[in-house]
């Protein structure tokens, strides 16, 4: 009799564990998806700001054509990219192009005093903060979820429920092409 009770208790514990783990995985997958769409919304907002920014700078520095083209091309690349890895790379390229554009703006005092330009720059910074915040949430959710999917014994439940690990969203800044100046002073 006692043996039967112990067996029943064991089965109940195993089933309870499976249910709790499965539900945790579902919740994590859900919040990872929501986190990813949060990042997407903020990225889109940033992409929408860029044409305005380019137009404003053009009004003061019309001959910097190369810089404008680089930004526009990088933006187009970022808009069409899909999935965390591709989007991360494309955003990195866009960051670099934007950095150059803003560096160009430094050389034009009139532009730096332009209210519209200042407001756009502020909004761009705020949007970048939001991208960083939503990436933080997404990445830590994905880390928790991936650990659960790979660790014993929760990996068994994950395998049965077809849960798949997700990629992190990292914005990679491409390496500078120009040779690095090394100084020994």
């Amino acid at each position, binding site marked *: 009799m006692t043996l039967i009770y112990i067996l029943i208790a064991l089965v109940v514990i195993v089933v309870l564990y499976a249910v709790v783990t499965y539900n945790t995985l579902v919740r994590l997958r859900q919040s990872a998806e929501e986190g990813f769409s949060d990042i997407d919304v903020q990225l889109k907002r940033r992409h929408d700001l860029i044409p305005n920014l380019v137009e404003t700078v053009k009004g003061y520095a019309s001959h910097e054509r190369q810089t404008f083209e680089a930004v526009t091309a990088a933006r187009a690349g970022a808009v069409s990219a899909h999935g965390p890895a591709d989007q991360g790379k494309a955003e990195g390229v866009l960051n670099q192009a934007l950095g150059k554009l803003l560096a160009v703006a430094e050389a034009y005092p009139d532009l730096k005093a332009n209210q519209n330009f200042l407001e756009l720059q502020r909004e761009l910074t705020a949007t970048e*903060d939001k991208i960083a915040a*939503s990436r933080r949430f997404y990445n*830590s*959710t994905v*880390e928790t979820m991936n650990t659960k999917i790979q660790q014993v014994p929760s990996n068994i439940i994950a395998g049965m429920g077809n849960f798949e690990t997700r990629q992190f969203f990292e914005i990679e800044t491409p390496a500078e092409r120009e040779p690095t100046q090394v100084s020994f002073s």
Partner: protein
Amino acid sequence: MELSQQISRNKRKSFLLFCGFIVIYLAIGWAISYLYGNVALVIAAIVAVGMTLAALFLGDDMAVALAGGQKVEERSQAPELWDAVETMTLAAGLPKMPRVYIAMDESPNAFAAGRTQEQAIVCANIGLIRALDKEELEGVIAHEISHVRNYDVRLMTYAAVLAGSLGLISELGLRLGLFGGGRRDNQNPIMVIVALVTLILAPIAAVLIQMSISRRREFLADAMAAELTRYPQGLSSALRLIAGPAQATKNSSTIAHMYIVPGAFGALGRLFATHPPTEDRLAALDTLSGGIQHSHSKREYSQAMAGILGPQGL
């Protein structure tokens, strides 16, 4: 101390305190039913549940009205506050950005309200936005967003109503006792005295527990704010700046416990305070900033975040 440890310790202590509440409720239930029978107990229970529901459904709007908050409809009306709330909402992964309110009060203070994550409110005084820089404002807003994330508002409403209704019930019980109404004959006099003493002591114990839960939740919200901003120095610098002037917040007696910095502590001091002393909060944040600086690895962050995301203790 690691953030995840602090968070789980806070959850554990809040849970224990809430268990204490249940014990007190059982004790008072026993005292009432011993003295006056089960009908009185049922009436007392109905009163308690009714008060809890009323506080839950009317509490948010009343708090904002008392604070004199005006709704911020779009970003351009208050870009700094709006951006801070939106950024911290994203970092916390809340399903919806809380509604934003500004109160035209020069004292630098803020509070959160709302019984669910979807219906949350963050209300900041105009003085807060003027006094703090971006990182500090984000720290304060992260503290408020953490209250929303942890369902602290709901928890504290329950605690306040439980303590309040306990007081009401035991007062009713004592008055009935004084006038001898409804007393049964076959009672042991010693047990009657025990029951009456229970009625006197229970509400005091309940208020002490309520305050203690509140202080735990404040520490927890500070710890989570550090996690959300990844920059504990923002909140600690803000607390240093606003701890003094924030005590001048208007209406602070009614909703003082909801603000990030409550009104001046009364004569009863620490025991009845809803918030830990600012020095203690700063000390806790300082140990955290040490921890966060030395543990920049993703693994440790995710452990901390898992502590936050894990099943709530309450």
